[in-house]
């Protein structure tokens, strides 16, 4: 108990040191397994598409004391006897059938109203023509492609293209897992679910960008010392941004949980409930993927860049790295870098533009290294750095 309190206190004070690169290896296996399960379920079980995508009609009526069997009895003779019937939230009956003819729709409506002892106006009805669904799906797919393209360009311009690759990979990971969740448990896909998936994408990207921005800030400073590999700097950044991610996830999940709970108790809030379920999965997966999938991919790609490959090579030669665990960036180096960054920022009006130039180019990093601090060890050599290996 005291141990847990100690861990929590360390997190609150910011003294925690989580070895992310070590966790990445486990995460990779875990993510791969979940993605394979999701895709497998998608291939085998498919998705339970709502009438909005396939055409048909859905009726909803408040009927607290009615069972599915009673509803099926009542629908005999209306042409909807083979309909899908569910109870939602304990007191709403939902019937879905492949019926679009207005008179048949009205017959079912009448039968349900009679069953529940209410007037016809208390029955909610949604009818969708068969071609409408495909129209909606086409539009959604186009929107999705445009979205991916725009976001990739945006991140490539604002951050860098390797981060765009990492962010998109993380988003696709999240969507595959969320859709897989729906396929596995055969939850119905409704327009609300689609909105939820879109939100998940937005949230995942948002979170990834916040993480990447921190990585760039830290890397821009610490590269100057030349003492740490990209992965080690990434680890420092992730530790710095961890509490932000945790707190944001908690504050985002709270309203969603409240939707889920309220939705399952209150009549008529079925849409809220469905929406909340998808979001809950999405937010958790989205936070995870920013710290693990998106970060790990960028670290792997950046380590191949000459400047970071060089640093890693030198550190290996010195035998400073040891076994499995990731070295922790010393407070001194992090702070020194910070001082240099501040000094640079004092010149330019916005302090992050300094970090941007330092992050990418080896030359810039070398310059700040020579100008910044006296305690800097061998600087990265540009000539050998061009070799790719």
């Amino acid at each position, binding site marked *: 108990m*005291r141990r847990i309190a100690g*861990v929590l206190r360390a997190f609150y004070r910011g003294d925690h040191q989580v070895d992310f690169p070590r966790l990445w290896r486990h995460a990779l296996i875990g993510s791969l397994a979940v993605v394979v399960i999701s895709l497998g379920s998608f291939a085998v079980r498919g998705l339970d598409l709502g009438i909005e995508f396939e055409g048909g009609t859905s009726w909803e009526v408040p009927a607290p004391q009615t069972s599915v069997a009673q509803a099926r009895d009542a629908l005999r003779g209306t042409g909807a006897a083979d309909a899908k019937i569910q109870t939602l939230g304990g007191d709403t009956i939902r019937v879905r059938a492949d019926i679009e003819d207005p008179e048949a729709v009205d017959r079912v409506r009448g039968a349900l109203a009679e069953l529940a002892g209410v007037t016809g106006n208390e029955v909610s009805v949604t009818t969708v023509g068969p071609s409408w669904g495909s129209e909606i799906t086409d539009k959604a797919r186009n929107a999705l492609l445009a979205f991916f393209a725009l976001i990739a360009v945006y991140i490539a311009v604002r951050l860098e293209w390797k981060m765009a690759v990492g962010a998109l990979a993380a988003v696709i990971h999240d969507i595959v897992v969320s859709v897989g969740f729906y396929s596995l448990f055969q939850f119905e896909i409704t327009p609300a679910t689609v909105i939820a998936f879109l939100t998940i994408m*937005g949230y995942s990207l948002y979170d990834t960008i916040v993480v990447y921005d921190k990585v760039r800030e830290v890397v821009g400073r610490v590269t100057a010392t030349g003492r740490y590999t990209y992965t080690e700097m990434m680890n420092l950044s992730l530790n710095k941004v961890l509490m932000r991610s945790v707190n*944001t996830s908690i504050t985002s999940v709270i309203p969603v949980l409240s939707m889920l709970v309220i939705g399952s108790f209150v009549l008529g809030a079925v849409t809220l409930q469905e929406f909340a379920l998808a979001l809950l999965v999405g937010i958790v997966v989205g936070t995870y993927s920013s710290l693990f999938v998106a970060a790990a991919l960028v670290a792997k790609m950046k380590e191949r860049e000459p400047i970071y490959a060089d640093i890693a090579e030198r550190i290996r030669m010195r035998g400073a790295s040891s076994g*499995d665990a990731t070295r922790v960036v010393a407070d001194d180096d992090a702070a020194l870098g910070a001082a240099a960054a501040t000094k640079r920022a004092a010149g330019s009006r916005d302090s992050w533009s300094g970090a941007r130039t330092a992050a990418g180019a080896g030359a810039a990093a070398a310059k700040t290294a020579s100008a910044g601090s006296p305690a800097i060890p061998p600087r990265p050599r540009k000539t050998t750095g061009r070799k790719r290996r």
Partner: protein
Amino acid sequence: MRRKFAYVIGIVAVVAAGVAYTLASGNEPLLGLDLQGGASVVLEPTGPAEPEELEVAVEIIRNRVDGLGVAEPEISTQGGNILVQLPGVDEQQRALDLVGQTAELRFRPVLGVLPEESFTGDDVDEALLDAFALTEGDVAPEAEVVLPQYDDQRNIALRYILGPTAVTGDGLEGAVAQYQSFIGWHVAPTFISGAAGIDLFNEVSSRCHARIVECPSGQVAIELDNEVVSAPSVQADSVVFEPFERSSITISGGFSEQEARDIALVLDYGALPVELEAQQSQIVSASLGTDALSAGVVAGLIGLGLVSLYLLVYYRLLGLVAIASLGLSGAMLWTIIAWLGESQGLALTLAGVTGLIVAIGVSVDSNVVYFEHLREDVRSGRTLRSAVDRAFPVAFSTIVKADLASLIAAAVLYFLTVGQVRGFALYLGLATILDLVATYFFMGPIIGIISRHSGLYDNPSRFGIPVPAAPASQSHSHSQSQAQSQTGAAAGPEAAARQGAAS
């Protein structure tokens, strides 16, 4: 410093003015039909349609809806479709049927009736049709066609063989529903006087009355949207057709009051220039709508309350600022949503509400990003005052980058999708922009101001920032981390326990 005061005072004044305006003008958010009950339908033309034709159709539909007495209908074209939304409408199904009805009225002479043995149910003997060069259904005004007449149970009662169209609905001036004791409810259309209207009708009636070859039955069929409503015989002393040198007629077909009123309504405003087919229709009962609304509001409030509590416990004074900042953007949102509803007729739907609930998370994050920057800087030995000035530009640039991604997402969804997703995107985008405003003009400056308040800046723990570790423990942890690599997972709790003991 002066600028910070100006920002804070400015934004609070703007928000207060907005709220005051909203209260004074009585603006209220317009609720979508999924939150107050009602009906909606998406109508698609069955064939190619010109934009002008769609505009005319929208106008006619609007007139019909007004005739029904719906309070705030929204009828618009969207892509090549017509979107009709009738929030709060009572008889939803009837309203939807009326809205989409083509109401193509034709008068045709009756050539005969198909013998009963030539059709079973919906299937007509094709060979017979071919032999007489007849087609089933109204294919062209000049063609000879076979059209059904339905009984009350919507079963086909008769199939008439009809001659070319004599008069169309264009010849009508208007129509009303009337009641007379011995014929019951009927529809009384009035014709345009002269050659374009009543003369055409009188001509066909005379011919039928004479029972010439083109009208051997002596009946004139009244056809509405491919169905024969009734086919009365033309007789001078007929109850239905009084002497045909008249300016008005009545159409009776054993109508109920509602049927008569509906037919009169659609005839009154004329036929739609294109035939429309319902692609998607939705009927939400009033109780379902209000339940969804109250559930959304309750969920939002509970969620907000718990988030506030968490922020207060974790960030103390900063949490208070975050809550105030949330409240500020909330007030701006309310003003804008109410204004949009009142002046643009833009309704807040359930999808919109969920977009807003999601936006709570994004707004809180803007605060969290900044606060965590502050904590980090104070931890690395800065005073709170210098940390505040340094951290804000860095944090704000992160917030802008991330929010821009959300905005791009919202814009793409808004412009490229339809229906619910659009509403969601609109409110998500709106909330994101307001978050940026609240962060830049309120949250940042006000923390700058209070961090200068003596008695606060020298005690960062009131800001939920752990007091920097004492010099002794700092050098300790420093030497430890420099000594060699350490396994983070194991070192974390150890270091924490040691520090806990030290302080």
